[in-house]
């Protein structure tokens, strides 16, 4: 189980880097769905023994992160009729380099934070890396939908870290977290829909009317 979990975590990092490098919105969403699936596998792989808690968390995660949210985002893309992300604020190559840097930084920081030996050693660095890469996508992309994708990647990073604490965080709370994220993205999607209607584009850099 340990090795499979390791492979899954590495695949999560690969999906991060893939989303960072792609300019097609549908690829971003597919990457996100894949990441959701991988994240859903992890509770079952990490738990010392198979429990109702782990299985229900896995099912819930897959339902929300791999099915519901990507489906909703795909609907939003269809509504807004966008296909490609325009050149991001710092360029695709620079984003990928930043992503690689974030990866290195995450591993460096994680080595300083002590964690019990029984834990999966890759979990903390991968969670921090995913967090940082989500932040990079959120801040450097122009299209509002891609910013939502970045936010979801950031949340995935936090979720990954939460997996180190499965005993401390009761199932109800995790359910609450998932629900919150779902509702949050739902509201974001509605706002994106309205942005598209109002501004005829999803370019968030156009939202500059309010300023001091």
């Amino acid at each position, binding site marked *: 189980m340990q090795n499979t979990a390791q492979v899954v975590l*590495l695949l999560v990092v690969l999906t991060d*880097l893939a989303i960072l*490098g792609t300019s097609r919105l549908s690829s971003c969403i597919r990457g996100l769905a894949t990441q959701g699936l991988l994240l859903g596998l992890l509770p079952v792989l990490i738990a010392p023994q198979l429990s109702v808690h782990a299985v229900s968390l896995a099912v819930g995660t897959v339902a929300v992160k791999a099915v519901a949210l990507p489906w909703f985002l795909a609907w939003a893309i269809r509504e807004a009729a966008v296909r490609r992300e325009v050149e991001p604020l710092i360029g695709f190559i620079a984003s*990928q380099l930043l992503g*690689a840097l974030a990866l290195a930084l995450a*591993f460096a920081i994680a080595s300083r934070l002590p964690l019990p030996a029984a834990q999966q050693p890759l979990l903390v*660095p991968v969670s921090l890396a995913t967090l940082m890469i989500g932040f990079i996508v959120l801040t450097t992309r122009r299209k509002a939908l891609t910013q939502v994708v970045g936010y979801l990647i950031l949340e995935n990073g936090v979720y990954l870290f939460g997996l180190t604490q499965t005993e401390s965080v009761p199932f109800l709370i995790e359910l609450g977290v998932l629900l919150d994220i779902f509702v949050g993205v739902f509201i974001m999607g509605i706002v994106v829909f309205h942005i598209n209607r109002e501004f005829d584009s999803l370019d968030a850099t156009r939202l500059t009317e309010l300023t001091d």
Partner: protein
Amino acid sequence: MSGNGLVALVILGVVAPAVPGIVVKTKSLLTGRRGPPVLQLYADLGKLFRKGTVYSRTTTWVFRAGPVVVLASLIVASLLLPLDGRAAPARFVGDWVAFAGLLALGRFALVLAGLDTGSSFEGMGASREVTIASFAEPTLFLCFLALVLSTGDLSLSGMLGTPLAAAWPRAGASLSLVGISLFVLLLAENSRVPVDDPATHLELTMIHEVIVLDHSGRDLALILYGSALKLALFGVLVVSVFVPRAGFSGPLAVGLLFLGLGVVAVAIGLVEAVMARLRLARVPQLLVGAAGLALFATILQLQ
């Protein structure tokens, strides 16, 4: 300097032109055509050797020296690879730097020969080739770095030989990433799709083909053979990383190598059939992605 190694080297030299043939055959079959025979390149080489060479009046000795330097550097580079899975005919600490340097020397000579013609097509191709190389070289070094960290050995014979076989159980993830990165490098350095389309006949879309546009006769034969040998060398790199052969007996290891080379050629053909060529502006992105994978592999090893 095992006998197996030298035998393998000779066989590699003989078999190299078949590798592009396998690639083209795979691609043709997958796209619904019969395609040229696998051994077509041998026939082409034979034909070219019998033909005379024409030199343009604007060229100098650089143009004549180009193909020779390319082939010579590739042959010397092939001496550094452990083809029998254990040791190379020539090995020393840091020979992977020499390997990269020899490949770079060959490319340099080719590019200079192209520039020597004074034609704008070759000049364009040269600048593209060198741009791609400036992204590919760091990636190659990162891959080698990851291999050095995984195996703890500073010579190619160790990085691709016995210590590699020992490193697979604990560094499997890193080595897979390095292998994928090397495959992407293979596509980039040997001008295959998605970096460059070898089948195109439009000069403005070419990268590698256009540099050698002015070569003819024996020079062209040397260059074509050199390209095939370079493809085979990169194929050997990829196969060595994915299939450590140190545990097998000599002849079996060599046989596995050529079998793996065939598989790599089929894989390249598959990629060529499935993907379209990338826009030139996107090629650096692809290579940075490959570099990112290699960097990730390195980070995993640094833990």
